[in-house]
């Protein structure tokens, strides 16, 4: 306020500023290298005196930091290391041993890290993409790689705990056997299930139809829930509780996905909590970390320059816009808010339209596909795939409408992008929810008493879990076909057209932009289907792994040859954050249908491992009641209110403590900042006074 640094005449204080201890130490650290090289001939003693000044910032123990973490050239680091090793002789035996063992341990760790980097999938591909397109797009491909690995691990989990024991016990390998206990107290009509497997001579196209829709010969394989109709299995005289294993494997893969995603998102956020500002949008982040040093292609560098210019200009403009927004009159504000309410109502209407059409399409598909008419191959397949087609259409049209509507709402550009993204995420994930809801209302829709005795519609869906599994399978296959078809039949012809035809409209249209957010929503949608579907179709993760493996190469080829990068690509770190948040939303949304299926809807009595239980969850209380009495009491105690309420209160107390701690730290940080500003002003004031005094 009173004192502006520009007031200080440049010449006089500069001399004093250069004599300050802090400036001298910075100078010494930088120039010390060249000076020491020249003085190298003068013997070791002089050097050793000069050495400790470098690392003295760490309280005078020069051996605390290893040589390679010092910002010095290799020649100086070599001398520092020799110095440290000479100093070791003066340490006690214990410290010597500690030092050498930590060194060898670090060496072993390095070797292990080097070895594991060989095993990394697609390292060279992602490196070349990074070189040509920057880190924003590279983060998409790293995300895809992460999902391939996640799905592969989920597949291994389900296979080794569910499919492998079933296969072993069904085929009697290792003297194992399977027992099918007919459930008691169940009406016999509920247990009738005749899947149409291979029935003699069938037309060839039946196999194709079965492959695409999961019916026929696929329905009786281990791909679907119906195969696991095992109530008890003995693997070489050891009893293996398959129903419990099935349920626990489901919980395990959900928990594994949750933990892995959270761990990956936490890796990026160490310091964000103390400061309130938005770190991604800060100017310092954009300027100091703006250039991707890994870009090797001059074209990509040119694009990067342009996009940086554009980004900086839009951010500066947005700041000026904020001023304009603050200056809005009451009348303008009213107008804008009423416009926004109208548009939100339109958005709501669009969403309801989508949901209703999916609901109707599912109902139609369910009603008409149960009339077995093998003669009409194509219409039957179309009816089977109708829900998938409607969902894909909705996922395509709704974002177009949203990006058009958002322009009328007059938000700041960054907020526009975020709001459109959130709406698109919601549409894609809610569509799956509506499909499942529609399926369930058909499955649990009971008119007759006989039906109520089973708890589900036993006539149409004797094995309803396999039905749901088939729907998820169809969605996965159709999604894959659409991605393949769009790349082959839309992108490549477009590229050919743009390169060979030079008329204006075609050139104006140009190549397709590689929209990172659209592509991410696509694969998150596929992953949510996988999470929901794995309970009903244990081998689905394998199919999704292969699907994403192929999609990696499709997207890479499409990027290299047929796409251009967007004018304003997302930054790497905010991209990672966005991908993981959307993935987490998908996972949480996957919990809901699974929770309802497992705990609420009666499991089918005609197939599957949960025939003898009311619901799939019932196997857990059943197992617990087989435990010794003491353990049972402990488990009941944990699940009771007498434990839950105090536990909740303790958690609340811990949370309040940490919130108070964070607030206290924030206040201390503010005080220290103010103090620093004061110190700097004092320093310059004193220098001015000294200069004036010197002049007189």
């Amino acid at each position, binding site marked *: 306020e009173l004192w502006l640094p520009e007031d200080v005449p440049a010449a006089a204080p500069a001399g004093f500023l250069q004599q300050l201890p802090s400036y001298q130490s910075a100078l010494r650290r930088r120039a010390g290298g060249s000076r020491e090289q020249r003085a190298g001939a003068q013997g070791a003693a002089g050097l050793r005196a000069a050495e400790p000044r470098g690392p003295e910032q760490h309280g005078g123990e020069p051996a605390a930091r290893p*040589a390679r973490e010092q910002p010095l050239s290799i020649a100086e680091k070599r001398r520092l290391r020799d110095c440290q090793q000479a100093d070791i002789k003066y340490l006690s035996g214990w410290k010597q041993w500690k030092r050498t063992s930590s060194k060898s341990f670090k060496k072993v760790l390095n070797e292990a890290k080097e070895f594991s980097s060989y095993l990394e999938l697609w390292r060279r591909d992602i490196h070349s993409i990074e070189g040509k397109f920057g*880190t924003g797009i590279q983060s998409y491909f790293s995300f895809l790689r992460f999902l391939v690995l996640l799905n592969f691990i989920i597949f291994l989990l389900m296979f080794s705990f569910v499919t492998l024991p079933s296969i072993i016990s069904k085929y009697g390998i290792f003297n194992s056997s399977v027992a099918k206990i007919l459930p008691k107290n169940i009406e016999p009509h509920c247990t009738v299930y005749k899947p149409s497997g291979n029935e003699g001579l069938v037309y060839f196209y039946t196999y194709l139809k079965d492959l695409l829709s999961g019916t026929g010969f696929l329905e009786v394989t281990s791909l679907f829930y119906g195969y696991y109709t095992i109530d008890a299995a003995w693997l070489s005289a050891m009893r293996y509780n398959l129903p419990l294993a099935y349920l626990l494997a489901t919980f395990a893969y959900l928990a594994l996905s949750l933990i892995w995603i959270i761990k990956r998102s936490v890796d990026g956020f160490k310091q964000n909590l103390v400061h309130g*500002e938005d770190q991604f949008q800060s100017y310092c982040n954009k300027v100091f970390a703006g*250039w991707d040093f890994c870009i090797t292609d001059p074209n990509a560098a040119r694009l990067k320059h342009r996009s940086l*210019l554009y980004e*900086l200009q839009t951010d500066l403009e947005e700041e000026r816009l904020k001023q304009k927004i603050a200056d809005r009159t009451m009348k303008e504000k009213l107008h804008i808010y009423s416009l926004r309410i109208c548009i939100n109502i339109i958005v709501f209407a669009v969403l309801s339209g989508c949901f209703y059409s999916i609901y109707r399409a599912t109902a139609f598909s369910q009603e008409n596909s149960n009339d077995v008419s093998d003669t009409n191959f194509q219409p039957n397949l179309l009816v089977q795939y109708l829900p998938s087609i409607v969902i894909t259409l909705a996922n395509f049209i709704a974002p177009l409408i949203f990006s058009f509507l958002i322009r009328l709402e007059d938000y700041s550009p960054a907020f526009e992008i975020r709001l459109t993204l959130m709406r698109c995420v919601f549409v894609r994930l809610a569509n799956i929810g509506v499909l499942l809801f529609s399926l369930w209302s058909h499955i649990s829709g009971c008119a007759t008493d006989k039906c109520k005795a089973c708890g589900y519609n036993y006539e149409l869906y004797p094995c309803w879990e396999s039905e749901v599994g088939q729907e998820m399978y169809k969605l996965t296959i159709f999604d894959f076909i659409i991605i393949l078809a769009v790349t082959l039949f839309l992108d490549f012809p477009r590229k050919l057209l743009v390169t060979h035809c030079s008329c204006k409209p075609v050139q104006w249209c140009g190549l397709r932009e590689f929209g990172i957010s659209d592509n991410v929503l696509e694969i998150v949608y596929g992953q949510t289907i996988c999470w929901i579907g794995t309970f009903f179709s244990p081998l689905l993760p394998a199919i999704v792994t292969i699907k994403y493996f192929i999609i990696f190469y499709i997207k890479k080829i499409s990027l290299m040859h047929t796409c251009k990068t967007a004018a304003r690509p997302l930054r790497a770190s905010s991209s990672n954050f966005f991908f993981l948040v959307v993935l987490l939303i998908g996972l949480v949304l996957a919990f809901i249908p699974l929770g309802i299926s497992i705990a609420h809807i009666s499991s089918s009595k005609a197939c599957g491992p949960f025939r003898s239980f009311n619901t799939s969850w019932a196997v857990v209380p059943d197992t617990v009641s087989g435990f010794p009495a003491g353990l049972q009491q402990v488990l009941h105690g944990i699940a009771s209110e007498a434990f839950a309420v105090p536990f909740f209160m303790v958690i609340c107390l811990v949370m309040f403590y940490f919130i108070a701690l964070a607030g206290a730290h924030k206040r201390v940080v503010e005080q220290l900042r103010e103090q*620093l500003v004061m110190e700097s*002003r004092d320093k310059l004031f004193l220098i001015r006074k000294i200069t004036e005094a010197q002049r007189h």
Partner: protein
Amino acid sequence: TCEAEAARAAMGGSASLLPREALSEFQELTFLSKQEILLAYKRFSALLPKEERVAVCSARVPKSQILTLPELRANPFQHRICHVFSTSEDGDDSMSFEDFLDMLSVFSDSATSDIKSHYAFRIFDFDDDGTLDRKDLEKLVNCLTGQGEESRLSNAEMEQLIRNILEESDIDKDGTINLSEFQHVISRSPDFASSFKIVL
């Protein structure tokens, strides 16, 4: 060591591979793995003329040759990088093999954020005076947006941008950013670790 290899080459030996002791010493003194050091050796000797390839460790490559590397050729900070990492006493910014390894070590994946921010500060300090003042920031932004008249920010925009940067990072409000303030603002920057990276 590398000097031993140079001595051997001077005696007419045909060693054009990196000796094992030198390799493990470089592994200890830099953040690079064995694979990366060998690759760097290969790429560096490819920059030398044929006669000098036997004594790679003692040769110096002129700046013009270094700038032909694809990793540096498209980089707007290429001159600053050569200047900062060069230990040449003639001031011609030529780089020896050890300088080259130093550079790769700082830009590698495993380098600590401390080291990276220290060298980033030196690279961005265009006038080598130990602080980032307005002129340095202006040159930095111009490097980012590209050479050429139409790819620069207008004066008003530049003023606004520099004012915002100083507001965010200049803690003691003296109009310049010193090393500790720079390291502080970098530690809060989520993009820095992934963008300040060069891998051969």
